Structure formats: structure tokens, C-alpha cells
């Protein structure tokens, strides 16, 4: 099983991810299933009726608006970063959390590395599938890169500095 950073720990990934090429007519494998949007759209009723949790993963070109009516039925949303420089997923995460109140697991997958996960976490991601050729233990340090933040976000480690009202050390 692949390793995952979840809530700040390294854990084994207990989800089975079906890729976008998975035959939409094929029988579903057992276990917790993380399915592509096309499979969800094709077999939603069947996926919900199983006695195992289901999640949806979105490509960066698939806006989460497409799953807004699914959020109550799923336990996990994963957002793919095809390359680290495609930053749409940061806003998708915030829309999912802040606008639609999604409270389940929100996972970053794809080109996810140490230098991005501090930012991703603040946008509401709580699990990270670090790129396969990188060491997740090393990446874990990325979550601690800064001890302070200026602005509010979905997750604030501390009160944002922007909210300072009194001058100190002036």
C-alpha cells in the first residue's frame, strides 16, 4: 500500500483509486473506492449503495461544481495536480471547504511535493499523496516550514498577522 501524509502523520493509504481509463461497465473492486468523475456520473447509485465509503477524484480541468450535489454522499475528494505549477486545485479546495462546507477528507494527488504542502494545507487539504519518486518522510518537514502566516485562509495555524491591531516593538 502506498504511503500518505494524513493529518500530519505518515499512514498507509487504505483507498483503492480507479484511474480515468477504468471501464465504466466493469465490476467494481472491493474496498474504499476513489473513483474518477466519469465513473461517479455513470454509476452513482451503485457506488452509494455499497457498504464501503466512496470518494471522487477530480482532474485539474474538472471544476468541483460538478460534484456539489455529491458531497453528502462521499467521504473523500481528491484533486489532481498534473504539474505542481497548475494551481487551480488550491482554489478548488477553498471553494469546497469555504463555500460548500465539505467536511470530509480532502486529498492532494499528482505532482505533490514538500515545497507545496504547507500552502495546500492552508487551503483545506488534509491529506497528501506525495509524488511516488519522493520520500514522504522528507516531505513531512514541508508542513512546518513557517510558524506564522499573514492572511486568513481555510486553515490558520495561528491568528493571521494581518489582524494585528496594536503596534509592537515600534
Amino acid at each position, binding site marked *: 500500500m502506498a504511503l500518505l501524509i494524513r493529518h500530519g502523520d505518515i499512514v498507509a493509504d487504505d483507498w483503492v483509486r480507479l484511474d480515468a481509463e477504468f471501464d465504466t461497465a466493469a465490476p467494481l473492486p472491493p474496498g474504499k473506492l476513489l473513483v474518477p468523475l466519469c465513473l461517479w456520473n455513470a454509476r452513482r447509485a451503485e457506488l452509494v449503495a455499497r457498504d464501503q465509503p466512496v470518494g471522487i477524484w477530480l482532474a485539474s480541468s474538472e471544476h468541483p461544481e460538478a460534484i456539489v450535489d455529491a458531497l453528502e454522499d462521499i467521504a473523500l475528494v481528491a484533486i489532481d495536480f498534473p504539474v505542481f505549477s497548475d*494551481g487551480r486545485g488550491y482554489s478548488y479546495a477553498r471553494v469546497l471547504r469555504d463555500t460548500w462546507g465539505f467536511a470530509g477528507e480532502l486529498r492532494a494527488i499528482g505532482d505533490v511535493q514538500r515545497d507545496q504542502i504547507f500552502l495546500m494545507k492552508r487551503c483545506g487539504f488534509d491529506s497528501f499523496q506525495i509524488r511516488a519518486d519522493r520520500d514522504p518522510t522528507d516531505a513531512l518537514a514541508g508542513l512546518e516550514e513557517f510558524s506564522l502566516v499573514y492572511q486568513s485562509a481555510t486553515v490558520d495555524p495561528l491568528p493571521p498577522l*494581518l489582524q494585528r491591531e496594536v503596534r509592537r516593538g515600534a
Partner: protein
Amino acid sequence: MYRYDEHDQRMLDERVRQYRGQTERFLRGELSEAEFRALRLRNGLYVQRLAPMLRIAIPYGMLASRQLRQLAHIARHFDKGYAHFTTRQNVQFNWPRLEEVPDILAELASVQMHSIQTSGNCIRNTTADQFSGVAPDEVEDARPYCELIRQWSTFHPEFNYLPRKFKIAVCGSVADRAVVRVHDIGLVIVRDAGGATGFEVIVGGGLGRTPMIGTTIREFLPAPELLGYLEAILRVYNQFGRRDHLFKSRIKILVKALGADEFRARVEREWETTRRTVPPLTAAQIERARSYFTAPPYEDIDAAACAGALAAARATSRAFDRWLQRNVGAHRVPGYAIVTLSLKRTGIAPGDVTDRQLELVADLADAYSFGEVRVTHEQNLVLADVPQPRLFELWEAVRAAGLATPNIGMLTDIICCPGGDLCSLANAKSIPVAEAIQRRFDDLDYLHDLGDIDLNISGCMNACGHHHVAQIGILGVDKKGEEFYQISLGGNQGTDAALGTILGPSFAQEDMPEVIGRILDLYVAERHGDESFLETYRRIGIEPFRKAVYGASH
């Protein structure tokens, strides 16, 4: 000006430590070129034609004298004794070694400076009117809001991997000296009928390959709502801006594709969320920001007496008189003046200064202007708070340093990008063209007679030299591997910003001074009374200029 408290300093120190680690990982081969590229760009480090280039942020153009001295130190020890001021009020060093950059950043951090987000597809340094706080026509000082925007945008977790770079400019006065209409977001401070402060919000302006004047999407945004609204604009852009094509990825293309109304509707929809998640600025927060930009301890100066003394000094020195006319401006406090130091001396690349000049300017700032200096987007420096009775002695000191060329706002006050001499994206050199024009038009009487003319030069479509918004814009183009120059006329920065119109076929470098000469001759022949170049151009149009340059047969 803004001073860091222990929290700002800690964040900056953590950033230097992070970048040092990233550089080490790259040098050990643990980060690929492409991965490290994105990280070094967010720390201002480019790899240029000849060597790396490090761009350092000067938030909204404000510098303290000790920061200038530190820049001089860096120029001397890590560069070849030069620094280059850019059209975004930043400063660049051209010869740092990649391995030494973490050390340079640590030196900068010790004077509260950095290179965070000076490149890469993120929110860049916010720029402002260089006369903020001292301009007589000011509605309100832009700098406290710029500082709040700086803090909001620094390491913003959501907007670090945008489709493209993102530039915000703020202007607090009636005249627009921050070119707000050609920025991704331009903000103009306005007051509503009840006297409350707010912003006119302009989006989708820009230069580059597809120049556009921005569109106002909100006439009045109450000041406390500023950051939530900016966050909504950026969220729309980050989700829907194009990422498939480098030249189509700026926000202006999105605004154009959606139409201003649909774009505004999407922003307002996101704003329903962001006005909840981004707490409105409280009066105390705004007050805190303002408290860093209070007026310095001005002295009571007898304005009438100094006017008399200045008039006497002008009568004895023509050179001083010229300098006063062009380089010294009115201040909102009687008895004070705003002095612009020209970095446009013939033979020196526009915006370049030496380490010694930087130190001298630092000394002058301490002696004459409360220890502060501002950088202008025209690539000059400003001493904003000079007592008028000391103008003459200041002039003598600046003149000795080669910074008193009396040409501010004139033909030879050329905005010029580094171009083909340094920049790896260039189509053509720009610095030698600037110099050739300065050499040809070196007669001060003639230049003063011509009056206000902006001449700007960019070495390629990226338009770092703002050529579109100059009355005479020059763009380097590549014609079958040879360097040519295209001229446009009639552009303008300011409240009535306009983009120039292309004159016609381009010219070889050696022909440029002659061509500019023909354009100027036509203006002088056609102008009515004391009409400016722009006014004449707007009255007669481009055709007479085409005839004058290409002949009747064009």
C-alpha cells in the same frame, strides 16, 4: 515607513532558511531544474543571458537610507558595483552567483528587505504613486493600503501558482502616477458622498503582447472590504484563467473573454464567500497600518521668504533654475519640495546606479529628507521631503554625483528595459538606442522647449519598458535575425491612459535618432502655442507624422 515587528522578521528569516534548504537540495541533485526554477523564481532569481539576475522587492517604492547602504554593499560584494532600478519600483542585480543567493537574502533580511514574489506566477510587489503622502493633489495616502496588500499577498497559500504573474498598483491622488489602468488590478482611492474611503477597482489592464486599458468593475469598494474583494478576483482568475497558452494567460484575456459583466458577476459570487472568510479590515487595523506613514516632523518654514530666496538663486544660476523647473515639484506642506534625482544621464543605462551613488543618496536622504528615498516607475529616485531653503545646497551635492540632469518628464528621461544586453527574452538591444537618442538630443534649451514627452523603450513584446503608454514608444523587433525598432505614437500614462498607435514599418538601430528627429520637427512645426506633444498629436492624428517619417508616398 513600515517597520517590521518581530513577527514580520521571523517570517522573513524562515523564508531565507527555506530557500537556503531548497538551494542545497538543488545543488545536491534532489530537485530538478524545473522544480528549482519555480522555487528560485519565487525568490526573485532568474537565469539570464550572461548570468543570474536577482530582483529585490522595494514595497511600493519606499527605501530607508540604511537599506540603500545595504544595497550598495551587495552591489559591491556580489555584483560588479551596480544596481538597476526597474519600472516596477524594484531593484536588480545582474551578476550574483546562484550558490551565494541565500547569503544575499540573509543580508537583505537584516535590513527588512527581500526578493519574495518578485518573479514567478504569483502576486508581485504592489506599486504605488511615488509621491504618496506628499502630493498636493492627494485624496489619501496609498501606502497603508499597499502595506496591507503586501501582507495579504505575501505567501498567500491559494495564489502562489496562478496562470501568470499578477500585478497590483494603487494610486491615492487625482493625477494617476502609478499607471493603474495598465495593471492586472488597479486601485484608485476615492471618497463616497459621505466622505468614507473606498476604491475604484479596475481589472484587466496590461501591456505586453496584448496591451489593454483596464475596465472598472466597481466604482466604490468600501476600504474595509478591500482584501476580501481582491481575494474574490484572484479566485476567479486562478480557477478560470487560461493555462494552455503563455500569451493568453493574463487576467486581461479572461476579462475580455467573459466580458466585464460576466467577470464582475463571478467575482461578486465568490465575494459572498470571501467576505465571510477574509475578515473586513477593522478601523484599528487600518489605523495600525496608517501609523507607519505619519508625517515626519516638518519644521515651520516661511514659504514666502524662501520663494524670494529661491528666485534670487535662480536668477544667478541657469542650471539651478532648470533643475528646479524639471526635477523639483510642489509639496503639500508649505516650505517643502519634492526632489527627483535623475538616473537618466547620457551614457548611463537608464535606472543604473553605482554603489557609491547609492551611498551618497543614502547620506543625502539622511541630511535632507528624513532618511527616506522613493523609487519611481520611471526609474528615478525621489527625496520627498526637502526643505526649500536647502534646495540649492542639495542641488550642488546631487550635481557633483551626476544625479542632477534636469530632464525629468522630458524626452531624455527615457524609461528603458535592460534589453538585449542583459535580458534573455530580448529581440533587440534597448540601452544603446536610449543612449543614441540622449546623445543626439543633448541641447537643454531644445529639450526644455519640447517640454513634457515620454519616450519609452522595450527590447521585446513583454513591454517591461512600458513603450505602449509613451507618447513615443519604441519596441525592439526581430526581423530575420536582425534587430529592428518599431515606433508607436500617442500613448499616455495617467488618468486618460491610452495605448500608442504603430507608426509604420520598423527601422534599423542607426536610423532611430534621425527618425525621432523628424517626429519632433513635425511637432514643433505643427504645435499651437504651448501645446504639448500629446495635445498636438491628439489634434492632428498620426497621418502627418507618417508623412514626415516615411515621405508622402508611404
